[in-house]
């Protein structure tokens, strides 16, 4: 049985015109224009099952958004195959389009000059949502996102966080089975980010919706996604669970110490790599398997006032992977 979302050898090449800077460059380009081909996505393959919440991670220009745009039918691929719920996205069949939604953090699909409710009504007409189902779903979303007071406010008067909540509600009125989210928390403050995350988690749980999320905030990925896909220079360099990612790449832990008396840096260096040292405060990086042994040693032989052990952050892990991939 084919996967809910199946991507095979997907590739997208863009043609870009090259032009020298300045007036002379502009005049030259009138007569002769060089163009180069840039592969934004280089033949990636993956499968996603129904109900999965997958994080798509990568630096700027890695190919995340291009991939999402091909999965949603906005872009035609250069080669490769994609099946989403059994449909080929770029054929843009109505039955397919009624079953998914796309939300982009940097773009607005609502009617800028009109109250939020009008955008809801417009989508009701476009997606042919029966009135009773529309009202029920609207009420659920309004409550979950706490946007009741915003429905009669003009979209252009909303804050970024409020707008994103309303964008999500607009995109979910037709109860999509698949949700493509491109940086939905970009530019939001920490409270708004948390609100959006809580909502997405709840939506995934209650509606069993399949969600693909791209984000620069690793916190989004860590808190929401069971599976992480890491894309770099158009290639998929990791595809697996968050836990496996940590086990595979985070082979060290950090021990933070607060001491009652000054000790020497040399004495601590024998136990691990000292990444920070200020006399009575220190940070040690030690291999994961030696954490218990080193902690015991520290408590036994050093004047420890406070001790804490930290996992490597997701940002550090991903940064390591990118560096590794770049140097290959």
């Amino acid at each position, binding site marked *: 049985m084919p996967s809910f979302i199946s991507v095979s050898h997907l590739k997208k090449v863009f043609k870009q015109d090259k032009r020298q800077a300045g007036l002379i460059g502009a005049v030259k380009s009138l007569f002769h224009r060089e163009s180069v081909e840039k592969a934004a996505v280089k033949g990636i393959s993956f499968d996603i099952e129904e109900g999965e919440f997958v994080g798509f991670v990568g630096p700027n220009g890695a190919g995340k958004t291009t991939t999402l745009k091909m999965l949603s039918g*906005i872009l035609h691929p250069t080669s490769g195959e994609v099946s989403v719920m059994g449909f080929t996205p770029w054929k843009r069949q109505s039955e397919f389009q009624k079953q998914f939604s796309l939300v982009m953090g940097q*773009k607005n699909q609502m009617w800028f000059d009109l109250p939020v409710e009008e955008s809801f009504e417009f989508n009701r007409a476009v997606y042919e949502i029966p009135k009773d189902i529309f009202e029920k779903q609207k009420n659920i979303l309004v409550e979950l996102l706490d946007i009741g007071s915003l429905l009669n406010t003009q979209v252009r008067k909303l804050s970024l966080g409020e707008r994103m909540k309303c964008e999500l509600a607009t995109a979910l009125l037709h109860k999509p089975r698949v949700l493509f989210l491109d940086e939905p928390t970009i530019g939001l403050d920490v409270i708004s980010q948390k609100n959006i995350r809580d909502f997405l988690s709840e939506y995934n749980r209650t509606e069993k919706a399949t969600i693909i999320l791209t984000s620069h905030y690793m916190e989004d990925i860590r808190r929401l996604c069971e599976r992480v896909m890491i894309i770099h220079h158009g290639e998929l360099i990791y595809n697996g669970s968050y836990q496996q990612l940590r086990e595979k790449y985070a082979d060290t832990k950090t021990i933070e110490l607060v001491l009652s008396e000054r000790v020497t840096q040399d004495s601590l260096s024998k136990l691990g790599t000292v990444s920070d040292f200020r006399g009575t405060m220190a940070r040690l990086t030690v291999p994961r398997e030696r954490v218990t042994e080193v902690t015991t040693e520290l408590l036994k032989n050093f004047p420890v006032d406070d001790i804490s052990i930290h996992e490597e952050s997701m940002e550090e892990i991903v940064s390591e992977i990118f560096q590794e991939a770049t140097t290959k």
Partner: protein
Amino acid sequence: MKTLKIFLKLCELNLKKLLIYRASFFISLALMGMWVMAYVILIEVIFYHTSTLAGWNKGSVLLVMSFYYFVQNLSDIFFKENFEQFGDNLRRGELDFNIVKPAPLRLLTFFREIRFDHAAGLLITSGLFTYAFKNLPAPISVNHLLLGFIFALVSVVLYFSMLSIISTITFWIQKNDTFSALIFNVTQLSRYPRQIYRQIVGKILTFALPLALLGSLPAEVAVQFENGSLPIIFIGITIGFYFLGRIFWEYGLTKYTSAN
């Protein structure tokens, strides 16, 4: 049916927008009034020196002009601004949200901004029609006038299809303002009876790029001008352009590159 529902919803939302920005209704009224007045004066000057123009009397020429402005009014209200903004929207990747929606894409793209403030032009055009009727040597029947308006709607479809074809080229060349401006300017040729264009230019503007027919043909139908099977040919040309525009648009869409 669904297309009609979405179109009506677009009309409703844009009407609500108009109520927010109502000043532009009066600005539009003044601008359109000045344009029409200038051309009426020109016609008055021409007919001061002659009694007919390419076989047309003053009232009929004014009727051609009235139908031309009627077609222009409808395009100004419903889609002209969307075509003007299309290049910029394409470069900014604004088509993304339209492409993913289960609705006719050209409807969402070219009827998103409906300018009901430009409906002010219809008031001026109705005044022009009244002035044309007063100058006709004999009154025209209601049935023929109605037929004239039906052909004016066919002209609107033809005009839309031609603009759609021109706009689709933007998928390849990214910036297409010059072509669109050219079409807007060439369309002004249909302000006068098609018979004033002779030989090869007349043939081109009647059959190949039938812009000369936009205002002329509805007027010919209304005044029962002897033109053989031209109305049937005109409908055929419109259907041809409509489907050509649609197929070309679908092909152009495969070249869409969006924007980050």
